[in-house]
Structures are given as C-alpha cells and as structure tokens.
C-alpha cells in the first residue's frame, strides 16, 4: 500500500523536527533561565461506555471500561515572548484494543510580538461558530475514537503565522504530516460491518501524508458581527468511504480545495450563526451549510440559571454519501446552566432528518465534585434510522457514557 511504504521515514522526519523544536526551546530557555515560568497540570480519567443493544456485527461487545491521561506542560520565558506548550493524550480501553492510542495533542514553540505571532510544531486550531456541525473547522484531524461529535482533535504539524492589522487578523498555515482518521476495532461499536483499518484507506496524492498543505484565514469583527473567510488546500481530513457489493470497504483521502465562511451576529440575547463550505476534489465536489441561532434566557427569575435554546438547519449536497448523514436536517437543542459552585450543566440535542425518519438524540450532563473531580454523563440514541443513510450502520449503537476526570 502506498500509505504504509512512506510511513517509516515520515515518522522519522516528524520526530526529528519535534526534537529540534524541543532542543531549540531548551537552549533558548537556559539562556534566559531567570525569567522562566513553568506549569505542569493535566488530568486522569475513568470512562465507562455501555451500549444498550446487542451489536449487529460479530465480535461487538457491550461494556467498555477505559482509562485516559492528559498531561500538560507549559513554559514561558522573557515575560511570555517565547512559549513552549505541550499536551499529551493516552487512552487504554479494556475491551477494544483498537481504541488504545497515544497522541501529542500539542507540542509547539511560539514567539509573540506586538502585532504577530509565529508557532512551529503540533498544534490545535478551531474555526467556526455553529454547534451541530463544524464545517469550516478543517486544520486538525478528528479524533474519531474519542468523540462522536467530532470535537476532539489530533495534533497537526504546522508553521502558523498570525498577523493582526486594523482590518482584521490574517492567519497563514503551512502544514504536512497528515494524520489518518482512526476507527474502532472488531470488538468496538459505532463501526462499519467490517472494521476500517489504516491500510484500507489510501491517498489520492502521490505524496501521501507528507504532502505539503496550506491554509489562510482572515477574521475580523464589526460591532456585533464576527466574520471569517478561510481557504484550505491539501489532503482532505474526511475520507471518502464506500461499501462494495460484497460488503468490503473502499476508501480514499482525496486532495481537496475548500473555501469556508463563518459568521456570527450577536444581537442582544440572540446569536445568529452561519457556516458554509465549498469543497472541490477530482473525486467528489460538495457544498454544505449550517445556519441557525442561539437564544439565552439569562438569570431566570433571579435564580442564576440560564436556559439556552438552539436551532440550526444543516445541508450537505452529497446526500447519502455524507459520512455525517446531515444532508438535510434540523438540529434543536437546549442548554441549562445552573451557574452554581459545581458548574452543573445539562445539554439536550436532537437532530431530525427533514426528508427521512432518522432521529439522533443526545443528552449530556456535567458537574464538579469538590475542587478537582468532574463527572460527565452522556447518552446518545439512534431512532428510526433510515437505511439510506451512512449512520444506518450504527443504528444499534445507543449508548450511555460515564466519565470521571480528576484534575491535577
């Protein structure tokens, strides 16, 4: 496979660059040792996922106890002119070994000047304003093993230059060392009938994961309006996956060009949100849209409780081929924040297909116990999933997840 042949020297080169970043930072730090500020923190977590229905595919289990660790190390010197930031992540799943993984979420050196900043290394970047889908957010690969909603990301190697002007902020990215999306194994849930393996997914680009990639973003705000335009050229983060007639999988990471716009207008208690992308590749073109609002009833009756109501419409012109299965759907959600000492929060969301029967329901709750223990409870239900959609494959994967994280 093309994908695996280049992997050896690719990993070597990536390690060499990361080592150079650390060594360089270390030298610079020692030279300024009097003004160095360091901070070590992080969390360890226990997670238990329980799938309420028996799996559709042979080998699938129901109970998934797991542990995670996320160490963080931060160094700054010369009063914050130079920064080294590290966040690692590790997961051990006792049921599905394919879910065991280590990742460097972030490891970058940064220099900060008055109007600009430059970062080198593995970094996470977030773009966008909507809640149901994150269309314009393209820089990092999704950590598919950690998050169903796509909010957990893998670190991306980059050179990032940000320049502030009176007419907005310009962000320039030069990237390489693409990360493939990871998928659950035979024991796992939320998977295709045949588990997707790394080697099954190939690249359109002859340079595979080492292909140089570029992105540019301009963002600004005018009174109540925040706006961003972005353009990306490189390996698509989302593979194009299909199932052959014999049930076997095929898939490829295309080379894509993607233009995106994100816009939010903040008028009184209402946030108006809009995200849209146009993606071009030789294999597949697409357009997608997420538009909606968030209304907050703040401090209801002087109780301190906030109730937020969210509504969004999602469109994806790939139709049935969309991995997200959001070809024409409505998202309705509510957020209840108690604003108490324990930061108690409850989130409810449902995605309803406009043309089909499919309903996705989610409920998330979180609360702090004492000063450093946080509990999260999450439930996701797949209801009346249409057999025309990709997530039809997950129709038996209703689950409950309890997470306990201890922060240090």
């Amino acid at each position, binding site marked *: 496979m093309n994908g695996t042949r280049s992997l050896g020297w690719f990993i070597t080169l990536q390690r060499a660059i990361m080592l150079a970043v650390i060594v360089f930072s270390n030298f610079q730090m020692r030279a300024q040792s009097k003004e160095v500020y360091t901070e070590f*923190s992080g*969390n360890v977590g226990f997670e238990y996922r329980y799938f309420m229905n028996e799996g559709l595919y042979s080998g699938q289990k129901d109970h998934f106890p797991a542990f995670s660790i996320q160490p*963080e190390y*931060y160094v700054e010197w010369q009063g*914050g002119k130079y*920064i080294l*930031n590290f966040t690692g992540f590790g997961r051990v799943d006792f049921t599905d070994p394919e879910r065991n993984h280590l990742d460097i979420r972030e490891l970058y050196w*940064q220099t*900060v000047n*008055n*109007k600009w*900043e430059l970062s080198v290394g593995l970094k*996470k*970047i*977030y773009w*966008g*304003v909507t809640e149901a889908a994150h269309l314009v957010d393209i820089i990092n690969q999704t950590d598919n093993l950690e998050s169903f909603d796509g*909010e*957990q*990301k893998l670190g991306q190697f980059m050179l990032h230059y*940000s320049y*502030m002007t009176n007419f907005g*902020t310009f962000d320039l990215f030069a990237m390489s060392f693409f990360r493939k999306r990871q998928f659950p194994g035979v024991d796992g849930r939320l998977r295709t009938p045949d588990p997707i393996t790394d080697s099954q997914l190939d690249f359109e680009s002859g340079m595979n994961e080492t292909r140089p990639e570029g992105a540019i973003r301009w*963002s600004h*705000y005018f009174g*109540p309006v*925040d706006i961003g335009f972005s353009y990306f050229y490189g390996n698509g983060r989302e593979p194009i996956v299909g199932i052959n007639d014999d049930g076997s999988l095929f898939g490829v990471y295309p080379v894509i060009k993607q233009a995106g716009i994100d816009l*939010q207008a*903040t008028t*009184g*208690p*209402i*946030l108006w949100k809009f995200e849209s992308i146009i993606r071009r590749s030789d294999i597949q073109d697409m357009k997608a849209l997420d538009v909606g609002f968030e209304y*907050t009833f*703040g*401090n209801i009756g*002087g109780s*301190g409780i*906030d109730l937020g109501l969210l509504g969004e419409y999602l469109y994806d012109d790939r139709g049935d081929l969309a991995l997200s299965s959001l070809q024409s759907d409505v998202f309705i959600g509510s957020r209840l924040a108690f*604003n*108490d*000492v*324990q*930061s108690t929060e409850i989130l409810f969301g449902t995605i309803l297909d406009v043309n089909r029967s499919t309903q996705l329901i989610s409920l998330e709750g979180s609360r*702090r116990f004492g*000063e*450093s223990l*946080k509990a999260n409870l999450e439930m996701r239900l797949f209801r009346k999933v249409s057999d025309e959609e990709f997530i039809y494959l997950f129709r038996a994967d209703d689950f409950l997840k309890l997470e306990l*994280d201890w*922060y*240090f």
Partner: protein
Amino acid sequence: MKKTIKTIALLLIGGSMTWAQTPEQKGLKIAQDASKYDEGFESSEVNLTMTLKNKHGQESVRFLSNQTLELIEDGDKSLIVFNSPRDVKGTATLTYTHKEVSDDQWLYLPSIKRVKRISSDNKSGPFMGSEFAYEDLSSQEVEKYTYKYIKDDNINGENAYVIERDPVDPKSGYTRQLVWLNKSNYRPEKIEFYDRKDELLKTLSYANYKVYLGKHWRAGEFLMVNHQTGKETTLKFEDYRFKVGLAEADFSQNSLIRAGR
C-alpha cells in the same frame, strides 16, 4: 463701582448655580469627579482569590487573574483568566466595555481551543457561581448609570458622599444602588444593591485599601453578602501592578487564546 456690581453679579450667579444644583446634578458631578480622579493608570494587572461561602459556611476557593487597559474615549478593555477550579483552568474572557452601547465579549474554551462571541446581555447572572454578578465586576463607566446625591455620611471613620445610582440598562438586575464614596479620594467604601422589587439584595464592603502611584486607591478585599440567601463571596486582590505597558494588541482574540493556553 462698575467692578463691584460685576463682582456682585458674578457672586449671585455663582450662588444661584450652587443653590440650583439638583441632587441629580450633584450626584452626577460626584461620579464624574470620582472617574476623573482615577484616570491615568493606563493599564493594570492583578491576581484574585475568590472564596465562595454558602449559608452552612462551606467554602470553595478559585484563582483568577485580570488585566485592564484604560481607555478614556471608550470604555476599558479587560482580560480575565480562570486558573482554578482546574477543570476550567485556562477559560478566559475578553471584554470591550462601551459607554453607550452593549459591551463586546468573547469567551475562550481551552479544551476545544474555541473562541466564542457571547452575549453581554446576561449581566445580572452570577459570576462563576459567586455572589458577584457580571455587572458588579465590569468596568464602572459613568454613562452606565443615572445619579442622585442623597446625603453626607460617616463610614469606616471617613467622611463620605452617599449617592444613588440607577442602571440605565433595563437588563440590569438592580433598580438602584447606594454608593458610599470617600470624600477625600473618591474610593468606594460600601455599595448596597436593591433588586428589581426594590428590596435590599446584597451589600458590598471594601477593605484593606492601598494607594498606588500616589492616587489610585484599590481595595485589597471585596466582601459581597447576599441578604436574601445568606451566601457570601470574598475577593482578595494581590500583586496590583499599574502602568505595565499593555497596549490594544494585548487585548485581541490571539491574546485571549494565549492567556488560556
């Protein structure tokens, strides 16, 4: 002779102006003088310790840091970073206060590296589960209230003006506030907050004052007591630094992301 008449005329005008000053005018004048008195700190940094106490006396402690950029034409800009509880460490807010229109406010969520513009409408809600509302801690621009002078009083052994100020914004959680301002240096000594039903809701007391750069009086401790719930919150301010050379560029969305790491 002409000169004498002129002098008398001037005295009369001056006198009548003093007599004609309504309690509203006098209150506004005091608020403006207080604001003027504190002008010129340019920028400041301070570390905060917030202690929340419920009615059973159980305590919970949080650490924050704050940077402020003084602006004269427009309202101040500020950056607040939460350092604890640890699960929200790195969460930060960037606020551009405005004198006339709603403030602009952005929130940074470090776990997903997201900057989110938030509504500044919800000013009456509790700040981090404390007895302070967002509006109690935001930059106190003169234009945000209308004023009325009430009386002179003696508080903490100091002579003070007592003025009433009514929030202009209908979204405020208060009908009015009574403010005790020290006559000699305009530092606030105490504020009483009256809720929308005009009942006494909270009292804020200032203590451990120190003067910086000769004229900027800052309390080392704020104590907010909620009379309706019996809960209280103490804010301790440490390591005040003024004229620290911060500029507009230090209050950008990039600075917000960096502050949150």
